[in-house]
């Protein structure tokens, strides 16, 4: 025995014309041969036809004029694709990926037993053992460096896009 909900779903799909040819003929046979399906179909079809009769409301008579008065104060903004340079977007993506990759390399390099943390260095004239890198490269310095770079990158990008957008808007306005 088919559940009521399933029957209604199949009938709605049939009424909306959303079912396959095969399903359509199955439903048609069910409607023709089963009184319960026939009654439900009739009921849903009535609702469907009524819904098609939904009336649209109308705004006030001045509506179009109001809109036209309002848009006369605006310009059509240039299409986003005209001022968003894909190379810039890719550049930002690459910047963040490199930052993340650098950060990960640094983190893994700090793990005990990591080969990255103790690279074999062979420089004859320079004794690296005497240089205390720990004072220069520690977590705080790294975070501050990365953050400053990220903020500078975003500020520069914002300036670049803003300048380009203004230029295009001026051109559109003149046009």
């Amino acid at each position: 025995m088919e559940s009521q909900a399933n029957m209604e779903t199949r009938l709605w799909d049939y009424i909306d014309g959303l079912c396959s040819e095969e399903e359509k003929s199955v439903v048609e046979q069910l409607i023709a041969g089963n009184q319960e399906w026939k009654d439900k179909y009739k009921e849903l079809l009535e609702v469907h036809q009524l819904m098609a009769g939904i009336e649209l409301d109308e705004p006030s008579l001045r509506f179009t004029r109001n809109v036209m008065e309002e848009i006369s104060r605006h310009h059509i903004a240039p299409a986003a694709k005209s001022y968003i340079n894909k190379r810039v977007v890719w550049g930002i993506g690459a910047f963040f990926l490199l930052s993340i990759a650098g950060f990960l390399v640094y983190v893994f390099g700090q793990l005990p037993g990591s080969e990255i943390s103790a690279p074999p260095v062979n420089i004859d004239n320079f004794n690296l053992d005497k240089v205390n890198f720990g004072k220069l490269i520690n977590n705080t310095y790294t975070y501050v460096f990365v953050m400053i770079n990220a903020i500078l990158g975003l500020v520069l990008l914002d300036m670049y896009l803003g300048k380009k957008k203004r230029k295009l808007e001026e051109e559109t306005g003149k046009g």
Partner: protein
Amino acid sequence: MNTGPSDNEIISSVLLGDQARYAELVKRYQNFVFTIALRYASRREDAEEIAQDVFVKAYRSLADFRGDSKFSTWLYTIVSTTCISFLRKKKIDTRSLDNEQVFEVADSQDSGMHANQVEQKSKLQMVNEAIKLLSPDDAKLITLFYKGEQSLEEISRIMGMETNTVKVKLHRARQRLKDRMEKHFVQEVKDLMS
């Protein structure tokens, strides 16, 4: 069905600087946009403000309309987002999205209706009354499907949902509308179904 120049022809003219032609698009879609706005805002003034905002936004972004979908689908996406952000901003007293509350409102509205008033309603009036008893989302979905000339795929784009989700939601919305009608317009439904 639209007659006369196509939407894309009008848009091309507007983009070339013939701003006045935008009025043709406004006239073509204003009733639909206003109706959807009215599903969210109970006051006509608010709905008109939303509708006006939609057309201004659409005008400003017209260069972004790529023409790979129908203009109406693109416009209704703006309607949808504008209605939602308008509600968030102004917190208008709409019938809540919570269906239980919707039904409570519906019950209280119907209880004040005299039997002879109900009897006088035509079938169409009855559906139009019943749709106002639904949640804004349900009402919008039904309006888009039946009056907006939008397919399920287009509605899914407008509402930002999967097509199957839209299908299930539409099915449930119609079921709720049917239930509302049966509950509040018992006699008429009996007459209709007989």
